[in-house]
């Protein structure tokens, strides 16, 4: 049975557990090589960018080429700090999850530039519809860490009243939409939101993020179709971190050249970006936001990166991918790369870096102490029990009133 020729083509990843991964065959455009069209260029001028790779930081950690956003060191250090904080936070939360402090957690290890650089390139008044792996946006926008933790441990201060799984943040004040557990649904919603902003005559841009695997959902097509038809001021981000739980990106991509190339079929400007290059992500997002604000409609960015850790606390990646894949991943680590760039230009050093990480660790530890003072999922206090009957409708009807009574709360 197992010996016969397979009769269906089922793509499989280059490496599985036990294999020695080697990405030398991965043919990626070099940093600095990609041309930068004007942000109001026709979408066709992005055709090469959709299959190329926009990169700024080269292998010597120097900023090169037309896409260099020319940021001053202050901004770069700020980006480095947000990324480092994201990582420290993730590590800590994972540990706490293992200790039973929360039901679930999802890290963004290796992908920190995706959220942080984008958030810094956007205005704070711009709206974001993220997936569950862009916590970096929250740090970049200055969300209170204690509040974030209170959500994750579902305690009495959780701004979602314990209704959502950890990491499914909402922060309306920060123009951060409610993260859904359902993949892809937010992509076309972001277009509706962007259309609403356009309709109201505001110059707000809306950005949304999904994963490589999620591009297969029908909602991806819904989003791109709407955005193309109504030229909505929206920035689509496909975070290609190579894996969808255990499923290799090739199952969603099939024979497509890149995920970015899918945007071209809708007449949408499309760019593949080195997602581990803070400067490249920043520059591409800036370009897309500027384009949107010029009334030129949507941009699709594929952020080429690698999921450095497990999908979530519910899976063991050792069961489905080669252990050392991440360590040989050719695009490196976004934090290391930005750090080395800053050191290279004489604006940073190892010692300062170490101090910063220590400081961030202390901040996270201290914040968690404070968070826990508001309770934990396991030991409470939680939001009052009767809150489960609130916010279903604007006002509870007789059914919910009776049910609350029935529960005796």
């Amino acid at each position, binding site marked *: 049975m197992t010996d016969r020729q397979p009769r269906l083509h089922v793509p499989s990843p280059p490496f599985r557990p036990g294999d020695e991964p080697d990405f030398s065959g991965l043919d990626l455009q070099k940093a600095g090589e990609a041309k930068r069209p004007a942000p109001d260029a026709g979408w066709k001028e992005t055709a090469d960018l959709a299959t190329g790779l926009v990169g700024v930081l080269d292998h010597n950690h120097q900023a090169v080429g037309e896409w260099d956003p020319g940021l001053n060191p202050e901004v770069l250090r700020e980006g480095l700090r947000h990324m480092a904080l994201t990582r420290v936070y993730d590590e800590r939360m994972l540990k706490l999850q293992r200790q039973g402090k929360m039901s679930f957690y999802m890290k963004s290890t290796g992908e920190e530039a995706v959220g942080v650089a984008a958030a810094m390139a956007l205005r704070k008044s711009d*709206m974001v519809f993220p997936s569950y792996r862009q916590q970096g946006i929250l740090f970049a926008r200055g969300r209170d860490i204690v509040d974030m933790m209170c959500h994750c441990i579902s305690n009495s201060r959780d*701004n*979602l*009243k314990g*209704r*959502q799984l950890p990491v*499914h943040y*909402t*922060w*309306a004040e920060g123009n951060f*939409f*409610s993260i*859904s557990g*359902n993949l892809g*649904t937010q*992509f*076309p*919603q*972001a*277009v*509706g*939101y*962007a*259309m*609403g*902003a356009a*309709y*109201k005559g505001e110059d707000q841009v809306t950005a949304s993020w999904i994963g490589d695997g999620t591009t297969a959902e*029908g*909602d991806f*097509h*819904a*989003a791109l*179709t*709407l955005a193309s*038809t109504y030229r909505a001021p929206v920035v689509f981000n496909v975070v290609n971190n190579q894996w969808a739980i255990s499923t290799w990106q090739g199952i969603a991509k099939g024979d497509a050249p890149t995920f970015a190339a899918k945007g071209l079929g809708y007449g949408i400007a499309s760019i593949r970006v080195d997602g581990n290059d803070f400067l490249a992500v920043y520059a591409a997002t800036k370009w897309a936001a500027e384009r949107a604000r010029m009334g030129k409609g949507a941009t699709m960015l594929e952020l080429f990166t690698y999921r450095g850790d497990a999908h979530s606390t519910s899976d063991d990646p050792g069961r489905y991918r080669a252990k050392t894949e991440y360590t040989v991943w050719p695009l490196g680590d976004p934090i290391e790369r930005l750090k080395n760039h800053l050191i290279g230009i004489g604006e940073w050093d190892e010692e300062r870096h170490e101090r910063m990480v220590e400081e961030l660790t202390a901040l996270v530890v201290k914040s968690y102490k404070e968070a826990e003072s508001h309770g934990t999922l396991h030991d409470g206090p939680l939001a009052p029990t009767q809150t489960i009957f609130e*916010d*279903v*409708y*604007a006002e509870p*009807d*007789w*059914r919910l009133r009776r049910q609350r009574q029935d529960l005796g709360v």
Partner: protein
Amino acid sequence: MPAMNMLQALNSAMDVLLEKNPDVVMFGEDTGYFGGVFGATQGLQKKYGADRVFDAPINEAAIAAMAIGMAAKGLKPVAEIQFADYIFPAFDQIISEMSRLRYRSAGQFTSACVIRSPWGGGIRGGQTHSMSPEAFFTHIPGVKVVVPSNPYDAKGLLIAAAESDDPIIFFEPKRIYNGPFDGVPDAPLKSWAKHAKGEVPEGHYTVPLDKAEIVREGEACTVVTYGTLVHVAEHAAEKAGIDAEIIDLKTLAPYDIETIAASVNKTGRVVVAHEAPRTSGFGAELAAQIQEECFYALEVPIYRLTGWDTPYPHAHEWAYFPGQARFIRALETVMETR
């Protein structure tokens, strides 16, 4: 007051809404220039502009998602799904997103919008232009479900729906767009002009979203229904000479249990009726709740008069539709006169 049919009343409601609130926008398949395949949005694009009333691509999920996004931004979308049979591609956006946005964000974001859709059978539409999928939506906490049965209510309920802070699924019984229907297939079309509820004020008014109406008072038994079957029921009660009290629910989620219970406690005999298939139809909810609420008042089992557990057939539409004969039999059964 002018006489309007149900389409005119709906059109008038949308006109009032667009006029009054600059955040109201309308879209759907063929709803822009053409004004919808049934004409509900006719003339509105011309009057209010193509950025307020426009055509959407044929993707019902996209239509729902666009509505959610716009609502979250503070607009008030009134979207059309061309036929209720085609609402299912949007089902995930409705159940997973629209219905839960307020809850999961603890009130930080809401998705109050209206999804209108022509609904129900009796127009020889076959299995894909005849469905009554209301039961599905009544099982979704967070959305309200409305089904008007006449022009006056259609306008008042639609305005109320669009002014509500909740997402609302608004099903329009297309069989009675142009006139009430007694359930007699070949009878000549009646006109709304001759029906009391065919008189519709021009301006703004609302019909409450949580109140049923007793459209025919009676002492012998209670009929709980909505949409097209309200008229079939009235006709059947008349014809059978049974003193039935007929309740038009108007809003199914949440339904008006008080009005229902008061009537059942009085009559002790109940028919619940809908066109949708029987198993897990909305009649099941009504029967389950009535038996709980009015157990000691019930004289006979609650009778569920429904469509069959089959797709809606085309040629044998009238063997599927709960028409006069079956309605009268239902009434006679609960009256034990059969």
